[in-house]
């Protein structure tokens, strides 16, 4: 681990790949967020076990026009995890 050296005057922040999420002003996807949080609490904060819930949340966002519709593969979700959900 090294701290900021002489040459690293800039922060190591990079722009996000798909830009910024538009704000969910109407809290349309709040239930999915709560479900995801509960799953995390149950599984001791292991994100690997809560991928379905995160997928649900992103799906909600896409359907409510809060996120550009993307192929699940491009978001890192493989076919195995799709389960009962269909690909949009």
């Amino acid at each position: 681990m090294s701290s900021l050296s002489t040459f690293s005057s800039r922060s190591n922040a990079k722009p996000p790949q798909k830009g910024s999420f538009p704000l969910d002003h109407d809290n349309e996807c709040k239930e999915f967020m709560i479900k995801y949080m509960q799953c995390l609490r149950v599984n001791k904060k292991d994100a690997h076990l809560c991928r379905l819930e995160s997928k649900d949340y992103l799906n909600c966002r896409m359907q409510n026009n809060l996120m550009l519709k993307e192929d699940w593969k491009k978001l890192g979700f493989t076919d195995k995890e799709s389960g009962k959900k269909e690909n949009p």
Partner: protein
Amino acid sequence: MALTLLCQRHCAAFLRSSAIKQTYFTQLAAPKLFSTYGIPKARKKISISKSFSKVCNSTTSVYFLKSNRCNFPMLTIIRTISRTHVRFSPNRNSGRLQDSNKTGLIYIVAVFIFMLGGAYAGVPLYKVFCQATGLGGQAVRGHDTSQVETMKAVDRPIRVIFNADVASSMRWNFRPQQTEVTVRPGETALAFYTAKNPTDKPIIGISTYNVLPYDAGQYFNKIQCFCFEEQRLNPKEEVDMPVFFYIDPEFAQDPKLEAVNNITLSYTFFEARDGLQLPLPGYPQPHDPPQPQQSS
């Protein structure tokens, strides 16, 4: 004959020095009377002959007395030498000095201009250098979007700790929904922050983030988040802000990060005001988020 040659050399040398002294002295005394060429010959001759006779008599009198025949030719030789020295030495020296001064000045001015030009040219050159070598963090590693499809999870659990900060003048309540998440490199993960505007006025915020340790920052890629764009919160409004990210699988191969198992993701919100300058990374194009529409 050897003796006459010796005598010639001695006398010529002395006369050279004496001629220079004579000319300088005479020029200093009455510069207007003498031009560089027009030194009265009669006066010069007399003085030279006097000095010549003095010197030659003192040093080589023995030799002269011995060989009579070398007197006249020697004298003419010495005279011509002295004349040439008298005529050309002051001019030659001042000319030389002037020329050398000129060339020196030209060199100095050229060096000055070169340095100045180098200082101006350094800005774009340094940019190119930094992009080529990646020094100073300016060469941002391009996101390989196709990598997200093909990357495989590495079995090395990393703890990502979430931190939320607010600028001192910013009146939002901003906090993470979860303190930490365990994630594997190569797997995408979701995390939430919550922001609330407790005031009666709408406040526009803009955020930036930082990843610690610094070396781990280059492996931390975000697919989508809420940073670097203005976010508006109406009065008394509370929203959830997600961050969708993944850690590059190459994280596991970096020797510097062998002992690193905790990464801290720290967000800071600022109030978006005119003249606010955030250290934003190189955004190539402005991003237009999809307009939220009410689905009926």
